[in-house]
C-alpha cells in the first residue's frame, strides 16, 4: 500500500497486473481493434467477451480479455462498464467461483485515484460510481459464496482506501462468512460424486442419517450386448436399511400389505435425485401389541440389579416437567429406501426380491407398487417371487438426474 502511494499516480499498475506475461497474437489483434469498437457502442464490452471466446469459454480466455482491456489503455477508460460486463459474463465462462478471477477483475480499477485525500472527500461519497462497482463485485462474490482473501483486501485498500464502501463491504463479508460457513450441519459437497452408485450411496445416507444403517448395492449398473445383438442395460439399485427397520419389518403383520412408493425428489444443490420407499400404513390401534414387561424382572425390589420402575403414586412435579406439549401424528413405518437407475416396477420388484434375502417376511407380505406418474391405479404383484423379465409393463420413464433449474438455484448461497 505504501509503495503504491509512492508511485506516480498516473501509473495505475497493480501488482498482479504487472506480473502478467505478453499475450498471443490473436489478442494483440483484438487490442488493436478494440479502441474503435469502444467508440462506437455502449455494449462493446459484452462484445469483447463474445468475440474473444468464440470457440471456448474458459478461465484462460476470460483472463485474456481482462488483460487485453487493462493493457489497451493506460487510463483504463470505461473500466466500470467493463467490470459490470465482466461480472455478468462470469458464469458463462465458468469462473463465477474463482477468487483469483475476481481479484484480477478488481485489479482493473486504477489504483490510488479513488482514495480520498482529505476529510471532505472522506465525508462525501468519493467516486460513487466506482465504489458502487466495487461493492457490486464483492456482492457477486458473496452471492456465489466466495470468500475474499488477503489479496482482495490489499487491492481494495489500494483502490478505494481504508474507509470506503467496498472496504466496509469486505469487512462485513469477512465478519459473516466464517460464521455461516459451517452453519449447515448437513453440508452437501460442492462436487457431487459422478458415479450414480456413489451418488445414491451419498444421498441415501443423507436421508437416513442413521449410523447403523447399511447401504447395499443390490445391482450394479451394466450395459451389455447379448449374442443376438440386443443391448441390455441393467440399472443400478442401491438400497439402505437399518437393523431397526429390519426388526420393525420382521414384526410386520403379514396380512397387511407393504407399499413401494415413489419416486420422491431429493435436491442436492443443483442436482435432483429420486428415491423410493418401502413402507406400510400405520398400525391400527387395536392391533398394537404392548410390549409387556414382566413386573418380576423390572419391578421395584425385584430386578436383578436395579428396578426399572418404581411403584409410586407420584408423578413428576410441574416445575420439573420440561417436556413440551407436542401433538404427535403417527405415520406408517418406513422399512427401507432405495435409489435406482430405472424407476419401473420390474427394477423395484428386483429390489424387493433382493431385500427378501435379509427380510424373509417379505415373501409372505403382499407388496403393492404405488409409483407416481403411472396410470394412477395400484399395480399389484404377488408377494412371493418377482421375475423382472415377466413384468414388461414399464413404469414411468424417470429422468434420474436432472440438471435443470440451474438458473433457479444459482442464487443459492453457500
Amino acid at each position, binding site marked *: 500500500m505504501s509503495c503504491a502511494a509512492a508511485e506516480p499516480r498516473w501509473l495505475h499498475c497493480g501488482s498482479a497486473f504487472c506480473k502478467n506475461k505478453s499475450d498471443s497474437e490473436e489478442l494483440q489483434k483484438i487490442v488493436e481493434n478494440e479502441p474503435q469498437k469502444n467508440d462506437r457502442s455502449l455494449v462493446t464490452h459484452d462484445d469483447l467477451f463474445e468475440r474473444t471466446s468464440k470457440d471456448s469459454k474458459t478461465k484462460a480466455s476470460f483472463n485474456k480479455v481482462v488483460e487485453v482491456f487493462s493493457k489497451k489503455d493506460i487510463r483504463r477508460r470505461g473500466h466500470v462498464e467493463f467490470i459490470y460486463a465482466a461480472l455478468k459474463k462470469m458464469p458463462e465462462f465458468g469462473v463465477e467461483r474463482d477468487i483469483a478471477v475476481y481479484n484480477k477483475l478488481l485489479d482493473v480499477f486504477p489504483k490510488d485515484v479513488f482514495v480520498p485525500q482529505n476529510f471532505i472527500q472522506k465525508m462525501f461519497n468519493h467516486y460513487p460510481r466506482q465504489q458502487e462497482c466495487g461493492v457490486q463485485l464483492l456482492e457477486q462474490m458473496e452471492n456465489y459464496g466466495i*470468500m475474499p*482473501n488477503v489479496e482482495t483486501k490489499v487491492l481494495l485498500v489500494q483502490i478505494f482506501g481504508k474507509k470506503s464502501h467496498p472496504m466496509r463491504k469486505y469487512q462485513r463479508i*469477512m465478519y459473516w*462468512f*466464517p460464521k455461516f*460457513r*459451517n452453519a449447515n450441519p448437513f453440508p452437501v459437497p460442492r462436487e457431487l460424486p459422478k458415479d450414480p452408485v456413489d451418488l445414491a450411496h451419498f444421498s441415501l445416507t443423507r436421508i437416513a442419517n442413521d*449410523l447403523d444403517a447399511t447401504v447395499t448395492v443390490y445391482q450394479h449398473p451394466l450395459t451389455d450386448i447379448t449374442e443376438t445383438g440386443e443391448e441390455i442395460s441393467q440399472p443400478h439399485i442401491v438400497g439402505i436399511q437399518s437393523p431397526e427397520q429390519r426388526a420393525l419389518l420382521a414384526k410386520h403383520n403379514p396380512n397387511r400389505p407393504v407399499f413401494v412408493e415413489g419416486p420422491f425428489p431429493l435436491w442436492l444443490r443443483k442436482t435432483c435425485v429420486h428415491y423410493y420407499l418401502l413402507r406400510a400404513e400405520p398400525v391400527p390401534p387395536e392391533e398394537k401389541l404392548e410390549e409387556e*414387561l*414382566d413386573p*418380576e*424382572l*423390572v419391578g*421395584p*425390589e*425385584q*430386578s*436383578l*440389579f*436395579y*428396578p*426399572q*420402575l*418404581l*411403584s*409410586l*403414586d*407420584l*408423578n*413428576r*412435579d410441574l*416445575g*420439573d416437567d*420440561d417436556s413440551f406439549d407436542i401433538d404427535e401424528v403417527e405415520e406408517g413405518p418406513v422399512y427401507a429406501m432405495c435409489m435406482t437407475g430405472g424407476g419401473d416396477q420390474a427394477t423395484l420388484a428386483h429390489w424387493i426380491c433382493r431385500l427378501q434375502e435379509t427380510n424373509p417376511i417379505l415373501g409372505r407380505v403382499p407388496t403393492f407398487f404405488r409409483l407416481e406418474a403411472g396410470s394412477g391405479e395400484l399395480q399389484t404383484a404377488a408377494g412371493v417371487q418377482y421375475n423382472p423379465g415377466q413384468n414388461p409393463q414399464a413404469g414411468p420413464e424417470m429422468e434420474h438426474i436432472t440438471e435443470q433449474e440451474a438458473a433457479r438455484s444459482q442464487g443459492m448461497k453457500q
Partner: protein
Amino acid sequence: MNLSRITVWSRAATLGKGVRLAAGVRRTGEEELATHLQPRRLIVSSARSLAYAKDLFLGKLNKNEVFPYPEISHEELEEINQFVPPVEKFFREDVNSKKIDEEAVIPQATLTGLKALGLFGIQVPEEYGGLGLSNTMYARLGEILSLDAAIAVTLSAHQAIGLKGILMAGTEQQKAKYLPRLASGEHMAAFCLTEPGSGSDAASIQTRATLTEDGKHFVLNGSKIWISNGGWADIMTVFARTEVLDADGQKKDKITAFIVERAFGGVSSGKPEDKLGIRGSNTCEVTFEDTKVPVENVIGEVGGGFKIAMNILNSGRFSMGSACAGMIKKLIEMAAEYAGTRKQFNKKLTEFGMVQEKFAIMAQNAFVMESMAYLTAGMMDRPGLPDCSVEAAMVKVTVPYSIGCVFVQVFSSEGAWVCVSEALQVLGGVGYTKNYPFERFLRDCRILQIFEGTNEILRMYIALTGMQYAGKILTGKIKEMKRGSVGVVLEMLGKKVHGSLRRNQDLGLTGQDGLVHPSLTVLAPSAKMLEENAVLFGSTVESLLYRYGKTIVEEQLVLKRVADTLINIYAMTAVLSRSSRSISIGLRNHDHEVLLANNFCKEAYFKNNYWLVQLQKGSPENNDANIKKIAQAVLEKRAYICSHPLDRTY
C-alpha cells in the same frame, strides 16, 4: 398393607450359624409361607427396626443397628486366629502371583494347597464338610485371599456365587449330594447368568429349559458368556427360561435356576478369555446343547430363579471391602518400604508432603473399607429368627443388607483403584515396570468396578431401592403438600425453619446418652457432621420425590449423587462406630483410628454437602443439562465433534 410388605423385606437373619440351625426345617410353599409369617412380622417389626441404610432415606439414623460396632465371640476370634496364620503362610510361600499372572493359569499344586486348607468351602456348613465360617470370618479370610486376585476371584466365583444357590435355596438332598464335594474342592462351581444379549439386563435371558414329555428332565439350550471358572467347573448354577403357568392359567416365561453337572453332557466351554487382570482365573463361554437336567436339580421352585439370582449376587458383595482393605494394607507396606529408602534431593521420599499425602489416602481408604466391610458382615451375622424357613431366610438375609453390601462394593472398588494408583505413583517409573507387583495390582483391581454388577448399576440399585422405600412412606404426605394442604405445608415450613435456625441436628449420637464416644473434642464434631448430613439427606430425598415422583428412574445423574451421598453417610457411620468402640475398649492405636475417622468424616461431609446442594438445584444449575447435551451431541455423531484447533475458516 404396605408396611407389612416392607417388614418382610426388612427382616434380618443370618447366613452363618443361624441358617445352619434352620436348615433342617422343611421348605414350605410360597403362599403357605406368606400366611405363616405375615402376622408375626408385624409384631416383630415394631421390636426390631428396619435396616439402617433404608432409614437414612427418611432422614433417620437408626443408630441401634450400627452402634455398637459388631463384635465376634471369643471362640470365633480364637478360631479365626488359628486359621489365619497357615493361610497367610501359604500365600506368602506357596503362591507365585507373578507366575500366575504371566502364565494365566493357577498351577495345580497351588489349587491343591487351597483345597487342603479348606478354602473351597469357607461358608459351607461343617456337616457338609465345609468350614462353616460366618460372614465376618469369611471377610477376614478375604483379606488374605486378595493378595492374589486370580485366586480370590476363582474362589469367590466358586463359593460366593457358584455354590451359593445350593447353599441358600437348595433342598436337603441337593445339599447332601453336591456340597461335600464342592466344599472339599473336588468339584468346582460356577455361576452362569450372563449371556451375550443379557449383561445387566436379566430380563433378556435367552437360554431355555424345556420340560421333557415324561416330566422328569429339563432340556437346556443356550450359551452363557464370561463365566468365571467356566472351563473348570463341574457343577454350575445355570439360569434359564422355562414356561410356567401363571395364576390365570396362561403360559409365561419365567427364570429358573438349575444345578447342572458337566457330566450331564452337552456342556462345552470355549477358549479362556485373555484378560487385562485376574489373568490366572478362568473366564470363558459355556454352551449348553440339549443338556438333560433332572427336575430334582431345580433350585428353589420352577420359575423362582430370579429371586435366587438376585439374592446370590447381593449377598456375595460384602467381602470385597475387606479384600480391598487387605490388598491396600499390603500395598502400603511395599510402597512405604520404597519411600523409606529412596532418596532424592538429599531427602527421603517420606519427607515430601505430596508423598505423605498418598500414604494418608491409602491408610484412610483401607480404614474406611475395613470398617464398612466388618460392620456389614457383622449385621449379616446377627442372629435372626431361629424358626424361619430357609427360603424366608434367603430373602431376608440379603435384601435389607444388600444395600450395605453394595455400599461396600462401590466404595471399596473405587477406593482400591485410587490407592493402587497412588501406591504405584510413589514408586514412579519403577512402579510402572513389571519388576514390582504394582502394575499387576492395578490391572487386577480394575475388575472390581466391573463384575457382579458395574458400579453404575449398583449406584442405581442403591438409590432406587431407597427411593422406593422412602416413596412408599412419603407418598401420602407429598400428595397432601401438592394439594396445598395448609397443615402439612406449615409443618414442613416449620421443620425447615427449625432446621436452619438450629444448624446442629440432634439425632442422639452425641451428648449424654450418645452412642458415639462422648469425649467432646474427639469424635463429637464428626458425629455432628453425620447427623447434619443425614437430616439434610432425608429432606433432600423428600424434595426429590416431590419433584420427580416415579420418573426419578430416568434421572440417573440425580440418582448417582443420591447413591454417592448415601455411601458416604454409611461410611461415616461405620468409621464412627468403629472408632467409638476402639476408644471405649482401648484398642491399640485407637487415637490413630480417631484421626482417620475425623479426617474422613470431614472430607465426606464437604462432599455430601456439595452433592446435596446440587441435588436441590434444577438440571440447568447443577450442570446436568450440560452434561446431557454434550453427550448427546457426541453420541449422535459417535465421535468427538469439535473442529481441530488448527482449523481455519478463512
